[in-house]
């Protein structure tokens, strides 16, 4: 939005407070408008963010519970609030969604050779996957294939997994009226066709809208800094960055791998305030990497586009793909992604 638009917010504020008396039901809507107007005014990007820590809610949980979420590549989407979604109707939803998927597959829209139509859909809640008590519970949708033989009960293969969550989504939760459930972050793993079918069902049933969440280079560099800042007992993977150089006819990719302990040492030398990450520290961290590279190769990495960041904690790609490797910082990673999703919805 153009910064020249903002002065209109000042005279209108007086009028809206009078309207408050007449339109009580419009309160959430006005809060939403005010939130949007506030954003349009000259508000700087949050200069500091907390380094992801283990949240108290998560410490009670068994790390094995969320183990199935790790080491898988998830495609990210942002989702507008769901209308009249209820956590008590999950069995009903699984039934409806199974029927919908079976119908879609029979229509020939998503025909895969050799696939039987015996699929089962399960909806389940993921307890503990949230930041504050106010956040709605996360829930998981899975498409499983039923095995042909009735004796084999354990032969259920997971075809597709998708989960919805909201971690520290206060800025969105405040502005949304009663009947809506806010789970702005959606992660999907599995065939693209299944994602599309499930998405269509949700959009029709709950009047919401999915859009894929791309992560731009600015946010990727924040992620790189935050994840390098995480304390790890053991580093499982090297820290790697991938840049894309725009040149014709084909773009060039530059990959830069650092030993994770070196990256952590660099971060520690840059980092000043404990427990927080500031914009200056992120810029300085990235600048050190750029100048080191420039000294050796005479290439200005800052003129290229950061496309992928990979650390021992997680890896993210600009197209909106993420892989989480460490359960300890899961909540922190989701918190940042939730923030990006909420920003995109706005």
């Amino acid at each position: 939005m153009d910064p020249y638009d903002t002065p209109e917010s000042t005279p209108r504020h007086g009028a809206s407070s009078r309207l408050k008396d007449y339109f009580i039901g419009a309160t959430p809507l006005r809060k939403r408008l005010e939130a949007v107007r506030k954003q349009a005014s000259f508000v700087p990007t949050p200069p500091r963010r907390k380094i992801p820590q283990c949240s108290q809610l998560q410490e009670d949980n068994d790390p094995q519970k969320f183990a199935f979420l790790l080491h898988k590549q998830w495609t990210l989407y942002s989702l507008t609030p769901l209308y009249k979604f209820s956590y008590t109707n999950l069995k009903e939803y699984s039934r409806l969604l199974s029927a919908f998927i079976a119908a879609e597959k029979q229509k020939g829209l998503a025909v895969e050779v050799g696939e039987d139509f015996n699929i089962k859909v399960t909806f389940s809640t993921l307890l503990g996957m949230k930041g504050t008590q106010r956040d709605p519970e996360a829930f998981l949708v899975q498409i499983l294939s039923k095995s042909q033989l009735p004796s084999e009960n354990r032969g259920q293969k997971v075809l597709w997994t998708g989960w919805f969550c909201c971690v520290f989504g206060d800025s969105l939760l405040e502005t949304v009226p009663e009947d809506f459930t806010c789970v702005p972050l959606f992660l999907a793993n599995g065939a693209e066709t299944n994602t599309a079918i499930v998405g269509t069902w949700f959009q029709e049933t709950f009047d919401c809208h999915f859009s894929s969440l791309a992560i731009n280079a600015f946010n990727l560099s924040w992620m790189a800094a935050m994840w390098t800042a995480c304390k790890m007992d053991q580093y499982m993977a090297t820290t790697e960055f991938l840049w894309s150089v725009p040149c014709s006819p084909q773009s060039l990719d530059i990959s830069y791998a650092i030993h994770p302990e070196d990256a952590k040492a660099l971060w520690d030398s840059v980092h000043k305030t404990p427990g927080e990450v500031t914009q200056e520290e992120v810029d300085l961290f990235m600048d050190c990497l750029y100048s080191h590279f420039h000294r050796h190769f005479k290439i200005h990495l800052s003129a290229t586009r950061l496309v992928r960041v990979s650390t021992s904690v997680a890896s993210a790609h600009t197209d909106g793909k993420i892989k989480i490797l460490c359960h300890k910082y899961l909540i922190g990673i989701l918190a940042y992604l939730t923030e990006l999703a909420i920003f995109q919805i706005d």
Partner: protein
Amino acid sequence: MLKEDCASELRVHLARSLPLPSSVDRPRIDLIVFVVNLHSKYSLRNVEESLHHVDATFFLGKAAFLATGAGRESHCSVHRNTIVKLAHTYRSPLFFCDLEIEGFRATMAQRLVRMLQICAGHVPGVSALNLLSLLRSSETLAPEDL
């Protein structure tokens, strides 16, 4: 910009960075437009360096910032607020224009030519400083100014 109709002679000089070599004899400069590509941090760094070489009198209406690439949010490495803050620090107008798109480019060129005519003093009754204060009065002041 050169395609636009203009009563007097319009010359455009492109430079990667400032300062310009002083050995060359050149006509008076009426308007400096700093182009920042939001996809590239390097471009921002370059402009920041070049700003130090510009005489202070240019910032009384004869300088402007042009940010390109804001349309493709997924490719941006520079946050929008960074460039807004920069333009605000130098008290100069900021334009957002995706120079890659033909239509936007043409409109921006028109706007810049109009601005240039005022800065060169070819429009009677309006000076560069007048224009600057007109553009600024529609902005809200930043909290630091209050």
